[in-house]
């Protein structure tokens, strides 16, 4: 149901919801960026819609709400193992259309590939998603190429225009709270074209695995893993046990984000490691996003948000890589 209401009413409504939900949205952190005078936009808790950065794309994705960077799974004592408690409150997350598709990728890995992940599920089941529309495409976005520029799979869509707020609700709680407000048809803003266009090769022949094409990435990539960490669809983690320095008998098991670009990711018994070459790591990541995942699960993993291109300190472009790969594939076949 679509509504037109006021910012004051909406803020009051969210204040009410905050009794049961922590509300997360992209916020601007002034001067907090990598370089001087550069801001970062990342997810944080909000209490007022005015805190949300609607006009720009967030540097970091929403995924950390459902997959904390470091998450405690268990606490240990001498003879006991205790599952970490779930957060008491649910969560409400503001995100873009492409990100909603990213959510599906997380669901696939954490709920469908092998056993259901209890920790993910217990957060996911209590999270509501609010779409932020895109009036214009941002730098490096290529959602149209990936077919992720539009989604109806949200709990609500919210657009703030000065003191007016437009809401499209798929959530009974909002419908109830907005009873009596002016009803109207609300269609979420979405882009119809991006400056960046990618063409994904149907299948990448294995002969290209050894192509000198990847060497260029081997020389440029510094294995910082930033492209993985900002990606809403990167799902990898490493297990870590720690014990408390003031009480060696107690400790905890955590999972922390991992990255296929950084050293140590494949280190194995005997000191053997796969993909020591950074170019081969780039190949692994790229094909995971636009080839392997699709063969297994039926859709591309990449959702075209372009955050990897935004963040790379070496100006490595994933989008260019796909397009060049497409050309090479055509030559190969």
């Amino acid at each position: 149901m679509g509504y037109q209401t006021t910012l004051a009413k909406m803020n009051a409504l969210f204040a009410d919801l905050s009794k049961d939900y922590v509300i997360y949205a992209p916020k601007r952190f002034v001067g907090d960026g990598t370089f001087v005078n550069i801001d970062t936009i990342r997810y944080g808790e909000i209490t007022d819609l005015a805190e949300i950065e609607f006009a720009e794309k967030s540097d970091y994705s929403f995924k950390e709400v459902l997959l904390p960077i470091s998450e405690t799974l268990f606490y240990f004592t001498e003879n006991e193992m205790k599952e970490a408690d779930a957060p008491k409150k649910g969560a409400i997350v503001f995100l873009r259309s492409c990100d909603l598709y990213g959510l599906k990728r997380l669901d696939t890995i954490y709920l469908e590939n092998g056993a259901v992940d209890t920790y993910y599920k217990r957060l996911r089941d209590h999270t509501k998603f609010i779409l932020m529309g895109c009036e214009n495409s941002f730098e490096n976005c290529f959602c149209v190429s990936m077919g992720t520029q539009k989604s109806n799979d949200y709990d609500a869509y919210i657009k703030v225009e000065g003191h007016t707020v437009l809401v499209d609700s798929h959530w009974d709680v909002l419908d109830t709270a907005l009873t009596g407000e002016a009803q109207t048809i609300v269609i979420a803003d979405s882009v119809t074209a991006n400056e960046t266009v990618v063409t994904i090769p149907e299948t990448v022949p294995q002969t290209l695995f050894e192509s000198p094409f990847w060497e260029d990435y081997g020389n440029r990539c510094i294995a910082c893993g930033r492209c993985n960490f900002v990606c809403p669809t990167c799902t990898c983690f490493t297990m870590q046990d720690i014990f408390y320095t003031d009480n060696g008998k107690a400790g905890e098991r955590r999972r922390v984000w991992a990255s296929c670009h950084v050293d140590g990711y494949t280190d194995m018994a005997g000191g053997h490691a796969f993909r020591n070459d950074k170019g081969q790591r780039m190949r692994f990541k790229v094909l995971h996003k636009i080839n392997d995942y699709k063969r297994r699960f039926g859709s591309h993993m990449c959702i075209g948000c372009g955050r990897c291109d935004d963040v790379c300190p070496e100006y490595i472009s994933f989008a260019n890589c796909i397009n060049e790969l497409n050309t090479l594939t055509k030559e190969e076949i």
Partner: protein
Amino acid sequence: MTVTNPYTPFLSKITEVIKHTEIEYTFRMAYQGDVLPGQFFEVSLPKFGEAPISVSGIGDGTVDLTIRKVGKVTNEIFENYVGDSLFLRGPYGNGFDIDNYKGKEILLVAGGTGLSPVKGIVDYFSAHPEDCQGFTLLVGFKSPKDVLFKKDFEKWEKNINVIMTVDTPEDGYCGKCGLVTQYIPEIPINHSDHAVGIVVGPPMMMKCTLTELFNVGFKEENIWISQERKMCCGIGKCGHCKIDDTYICLDGPVFNYTKGKFLKD
């Protein structure tokens, strides 16, 4: 909550410890439930972490885990847990299906600790030699000091053909020397185009052995391999073991070569 937590380990009693070398022991663990050779458990040690370890033997109410002391978790197991119990979760992975090999001539080639995940197959056919047309175990260790499962060898040799070799002999050693590959042409296989091969070991050893097996006429579809990769979860989540669209922990670690050959890191 209705979903059982797949990360929760269970406590399992160590019923026996068999010492093979200074750094390799078999821990016989209490375990009730179905398990196949080639599957693995995550051995979990609170405060130290987890390590995937293959099932090296299946008993009545027990599974054997042959562990090599190489790092954080395994060091701690050797130092503090002998005689007590360990946390486990699993079994994970697909394991070897013995039915694929029944009634056939079988050649199993293993390198070092690579014998662990396939030892259940050797145990089975040496106890049921009538279930196959012939069984050769070809296994290589680095040196006589590194030989595992010495007692089992005595038992196996009665019923199956066993060739054991070491890379570097030392004074007083009178067995076979050299790499496993050099013995392949000598193995009495009557119909190599129908025989099944099972190959497990370090990457280089697997590569050379496979080349040699093809040279003597083995068919790709009759060869099975087991892959080892870094694993952090064992249940298709952490991503470390993924190659192409395959998760070694879910779809493997055992693969028919026709599938396994496409797994390029």
